[in-house]
């Protein structure tokens, strides 16, 4: 696997890891400090949306051919 492809994959994985770290912090704050129904609803919607968007991102990531970009 060429070096650029490895670097690209590592960057994307790092970015997604940062996303889930921040998402965890947001979910923690909503569930721990939230008072009433509203924070719980926000947490549920956020979690559901994150899973859907993350799944779409992974599918699109698998379809990318970095060699096509490099050759251009």
């Amino acid at each position, binding site marked *: 696997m060429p070096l650029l492809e490895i670097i690209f994959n590592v960057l994307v994985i790092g*970015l997604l890891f940062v*996303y889930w770290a921040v998402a965890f912090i947001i979910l923690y704050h909503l569930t721990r400090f939230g008072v009433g*129904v*509203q*924070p719980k609803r*926000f947490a549920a919607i956020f979690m559901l949306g994150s899973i859907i968007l993350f799944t*779409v991102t992974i599918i699109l990531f698998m379809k*990318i051919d970095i060699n*096509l970009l490099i050759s251009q």
Partner: protein
Amino acid sequence: MIRSLLSIFRESTNSFEGQKDDENIVLLLRRHPFTIYIRIGFYVLAFLVPIVAGVMFYSYLSVHNWFDTFFFVSSIWYLGLWLAVFHSLTLYTLNTVLITDRRIIDSDQHGLFNRETSELHSNRIQDVSTHTNGMIETFLQFGDVTVQTAASEKQFVFHQVPRPDKVKDVIMQMTASKHTGVKAVVQ
């Protein structure tokens, strides 16, 4: 079991950390929703960026066959946008004013790791005033509520709360009941 799990999204006891056993919440306040709608409006504009970019550069992308990369970059954009929207919503929903039958707790969430909590016991409340400024605040009925305490310099200001006049009445009723010993009935 599923019903009991789903019930947390429909009803809540509004309990909070540090609540005493016989303490009841009279009012839970957040800023008026208009304050978050403005911010969400900017995020809606940001939502349109990949769509507009895709339309503008369609021919360029098709010539180089970069659609997969474009869609992937767009998905990363939307992930970041989703995070930004809920970061704002988290700060909005965690900024609360809790009025109980004993005290007022003002919780200001300035950032995810920046939280300021102030507490004021009802027997230290001296004056309550409201301030509604401008056409938008007047028509949408929100404004600031200022609570003056017994200490001459300390003031609690609750910004952009809905129906500030009603909030003032609730606080005054609560204060009066503390002084007279008669339990206040919030209408």
